[in-house]
């Protein structure tokens, strides 16, 4: 378990002190894949470096499995770091060493025997799918292959935690997906705690269980990925979520005026969200049966998955007598779903 409490980091700069982190509290449970998302300059890279103390926080506490990292001597810290693997945006491989020697590097630092190293490196290269590239140099590899070497190297010392600093930001979407799958596999096989720093909401959606949104050196919002995606509270979170789950209205509605109050000859636009099992319930059919005099039409719909939980979104239009529309709204409110009134449009739905 990683516990960060009241983490602050201030840098001196020619323009005066820069307050990069302003009191971060974060708890990451063992075995989780925890995503930290923020825009560049939000302080997320500084934050992840405060976990293995590549950056020492100016104030606050870093506990890993109960051990106070800031109280360790240099020597003890070096030992503790062997339990924390790290991968980087630009891979940071030794260009003068082969793939094999790169993966062997942390083992040689630890003074392990060559025979042990060979066995370990071979099994790691097998794991990341690069067994046939052992004698190549990093410059001969693609970006995705380089990151696989980075992952193998990070795992060599059998860490309990894997820190990923923008690990897929330099990769194309397909390679990103493959690398994320590999990270998820490792997380499950080795019961590794994974901390991921990213500016891409797609990465969070793909593999994280928990997410924290960081902005201006503070955590704006945190929670399970499903919760944060379904009920984003802060504007910054809504913006991130909208990148992967667009909340834009379908093109046909962007041109028309949306009124906040009903007027004659308008129909109600309603956004409905179904999560998990209740995505299967025939809510719309029930509503149509119950309110046969209302005209209900489905204008937009999609189905997505977050963390293997399906959720569907619908935009429906309802027109008819206003009193009945209000009753229908109440009825929908009683069902297990989220509804949001978008407004009223002056066109038959």
């Amino acid at each position, binding site marked *: 378990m990683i516990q960060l409490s009241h983490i602050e980091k201030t840098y001196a700069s020619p323009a005066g002190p820069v307050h990069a982190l302003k009191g971060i509290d974060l708890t990451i449970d063992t075995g989780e894949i925890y995503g930290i998302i923020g825009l560049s300059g939000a302080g997320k890279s500084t934050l992840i470096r405060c976990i293995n103390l590549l950056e020492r926080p100016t104030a606050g506490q870093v506990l890993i499995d109960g051990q106070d990292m800031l109280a360790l001597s240099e020597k003890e810290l070096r030992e503790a*770091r062997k339990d*924390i693997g790290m991968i980087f945006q630009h891979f*940071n491989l030794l260009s*003068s060493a082969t793939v094999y020697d790169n993966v062997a590097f942390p083992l*040689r630092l630890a003074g392990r025997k060559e025979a042990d190293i060979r066995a370990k490196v071979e099994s790691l290269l097998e794991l990341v799918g690069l067994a046939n590239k052992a004698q190549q140099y990093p410059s001969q590899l693609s970006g995705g292959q380089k990151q696989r070497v980075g992952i193998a190297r990070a795992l060599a010392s059998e860490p309990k935690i894997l820190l990923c600093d923008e690990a897929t930001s330099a990769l194309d979407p397909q390679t990103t997906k493959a690398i994320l799958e590999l990270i998820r596999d490792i997380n499950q096989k080795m019961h590794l705690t994974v901390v991921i720093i990213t500016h891409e909401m797609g990465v969070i959606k793909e593999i994280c269980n928990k997410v924290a949104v960081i902005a201006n050196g503070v955590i704006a919002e945190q929670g399970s990925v499903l919760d944060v995606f379904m009920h984003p509270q802060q504007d910054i979170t809504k913006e991130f979520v909208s990148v992967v789950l667009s909340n834009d209205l379908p093109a046909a509605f962007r041109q028309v005026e949306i009124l906040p109050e009903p007027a004659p000859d308008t129909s109600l636009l309603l956004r409905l969200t179904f999560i998990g099992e209740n995505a299967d319930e025939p809510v719309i059919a029930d509503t149509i049966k119950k309110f046969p005099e209302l005209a209900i039409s489905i204008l937009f719909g999609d189905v997505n998955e977050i963390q293997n939980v399906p959720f569907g979104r619908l935009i429906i239009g309802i027109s008819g007598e206003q009193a009945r529309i209000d009753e229908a709204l109440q009825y929908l409110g009683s069902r297990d779903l989220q509804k949001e009134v978008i407004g009223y449009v002056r066109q038959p739905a």
Partner: protein
Amino acid sequence: MSASLLDLLLPALGQTIYMVVVSMLVATLIGVPLGVLLHTTGKGQILENAALNKSVGAVVNAIRSIPFIILMVAIIPLTRLLVGTAIGTTAAMVPLVIAAVPFIGRQVETSLKEVPYGLVEAAESMGATPLQIIWHVLLPESRASIVAQLTTVIISLVGESAMAGAIGGGGLGDLAIRYGYQRFRPDVMLATVVVLIVLVQLVQFAGNRLAKSLDKK
């Protein structure tokens, strides 16, 4: 080429090579660690130490600003102390080493600066000690660049060793001055110049080849 010219050239060439090789070896043994010190004690580096960095840097700059011909004469007492005499090929190597060490230090520092800091950070994240980072990251990653820089130093040593002829150091420079210039033997002068050109070309060629074979980027 007459036998007498060869008899003059070969021993002189031998003395030049002897002076350059030995002083280069000694200077490299001191200069590379000096370059590592200059780099790693710099701002934001693994052994950051502003006081040490500034004072060593000042000494390096001071020695580098003395023209070789003056340095050679100025340190005669030191030379005498170290090798027992201020005259001869061995004595000439003392100023050669002293001139080359700060030169190599700065060149190696420049090479080490080219190593991306991310590599150092990655090694730190694996629990590497500063010494391990120097030995396993900084030096191997900059080896091609260091070889290229050292090649430059060797070539400047060839030139300086010629000046060392002035204090009886022997070698090709000495030959050119005593025979070519003072005894009016243009054939000796020309032959010396040709040998020096060939020597420098060979050093540069070998240095380039080695640097290229070490570069895996």
